[in-house]
């Protein structure tokens, strides 16, 4: 029976939600993701406890003009900046290409539009990281007594960029073994290149300075929104590639 509603809203709900939900729940099931969650939670707890037990350090930092919240979130922020790409690659390097390799993508594309597969998977992974980082920040909040919203937002924006970049790589490179290898190389090299480019005047570092997220992470300002724009660009390119590809 024709209900007159768009097919992507069958039965009154957006069918992309099911792709999103499966990606989100599957992310928690792998050993890699559990280890990452435990690692981040442990670091958050330990660093917050350390500063809680050493109030002199916090006062000294505060008196020199540092924001009080930053000292509590410094450890988790540093870990995400240095290892964020590596973590996202570890969990999601095969987010698209595995479906293509296994040909299960053929089941999906006969039922829902391709753009919904890409965006649904992206949001599912993003939600996983939103929850994972939230666990760490809840621990920090309980110990420090302050909700570090801007630091949390900054971390999530960085991960938004990283996830869209990883999804883009998984769309253009069709072999999951190759994206796993690339993930290790890029996960290690991108933070180094990105941080060096922020402080470098060399002409060949300029593209990295503006394309990688590190230049926009110095302060919690509107420049962070550029991460959002670049991330959306990666997503749009991934959708266009997927629409044109024979599966």
């Amino acid at each position, binding site marked *: 029976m024709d209900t007159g509603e768009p*097919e992507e809203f*069958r039965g009154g709900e957006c069918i992309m939600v099911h792709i999103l939900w499966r990606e989100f729940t599957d992310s928690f099931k792998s050993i890699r993701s559990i280890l990452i969650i435990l690692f981040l939670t442990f670091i958050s707890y330990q660093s917050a406890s350390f500063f809680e037990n050493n109030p002199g350090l916090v006062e000294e930092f505060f008196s020199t003009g540092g924001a009080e919240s930053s000292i509590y979130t410094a450890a988790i922020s540093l870990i995400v900046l240095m290892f964020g790409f590596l973590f996202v690659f570890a969990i999601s390097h095969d987010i698209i290409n595995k479906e293509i390799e*296994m040909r299960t993508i053929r089941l999906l*594309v*006969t039922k*829902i539009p391709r753009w919904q597969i890409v965006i649904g998977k992206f949001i599912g992974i993003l939600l996983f990281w939103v929850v994972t980082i939230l666990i760490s920040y809840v621990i920090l909040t309980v110990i420090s007594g302050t909700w570090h919203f801007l630091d949390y937002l900054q971390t999530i924006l960085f991960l938004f960029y990283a996830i869209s970049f990883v999804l883009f790589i998984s769309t253009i490179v069709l072999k999951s073994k190759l994206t796993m290898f690339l993930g290790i190389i890029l996960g290690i090299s991108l933070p180094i290149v990105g941080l060096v480019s922020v402080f470098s005047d060399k002409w060949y570092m300029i593209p990295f300075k503006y394309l990688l997220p590190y230049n926009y992470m110095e302060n919690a300002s509107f420049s962070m929104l550029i991460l959002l724009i670049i991330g959306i660009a990666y997503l749009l390119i991934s959708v266009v590639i997927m629409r044109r590809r024979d599966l």
Partner: protein
Amino acid sequence: MKNIINVAQLAKRFGTTDVLNGIDLTIQEGEVFGFIGHNGAGKSTFINMLTGIINKSSGSFEIIGTSDQQLDDVKAKIGVMPDISNLYDHMKGIQFLRYMGKLAGDTRTKQDYIALMKDIGLEGAEKKKIKAYSFGMKKKISIAQALLGNPSLIILDEPTSGLDPESAINIRKLIVDLQQQGKTILLTSHNLDEIDKISDRVGILSDGKVKKLGTPDELKNNTSSELSVAIRTNPTLTSQKLAELSANWDFNVQFVTTKKKYVVVNVPHDNDIAKLSKELIHSGFQLFELRMEQQSLEDVFINSK
């Protein structure tokens, strides 16, 4: 009856190879349409284009009143059974069906899915992972997922290949039932007898084109103006011996195939049959049986290549 699929000059090129070279075809609402062709003829490529798995190179098609540009709008009305290697092997059977059901907009409860698995002969396999399923079980669950969401057009790529006879019969019955419910079915198969039995119309694909199109009876009757004759002799006639002997005969005899103890040949005219029997006896053969052979879909298929 309206057309549910309209295909015009549909073509697909992979690199420098033309796999489909201008397909024109219509499939009517409520009919079972069988597509046959040798391996690599382009059957799966055709189905993959209709279902949005691959993009067309040129031409156009309309499916359930919607152009190929808006294919996303009608995906919920199309059930597709692709190759069984496309299943989520790490999922349990019931989990797989529920996931596919959600994507197809199916509103069944968990109990309904358990009942569905029982109906398709997978009772007790609900909590088994698909990778532990046998080939036949994978086929069954693949067909079941194609029926979720109550689609009006069902596309089945070789639904019975590799199945045991009982399972194949059950699937053929299911196809007939689905047609009686008003659904349109497009299927491919290598089993020509099966296509002959259940299809309203048949298309034979060869060299990237639809070479023959019609009801099974139309195809069998129109395939050749020649007469097919099955002969059983002692000693058994071989194609080599026939070629040797017929070189001296004043009428044409064309070897077609051997079927068990019979040799099937084509002759142009009625009176050539009498000449044939006379010549064989004259050459020292004992003629046990000589009968007119009705063309099968297999003959039509072989002749269309």
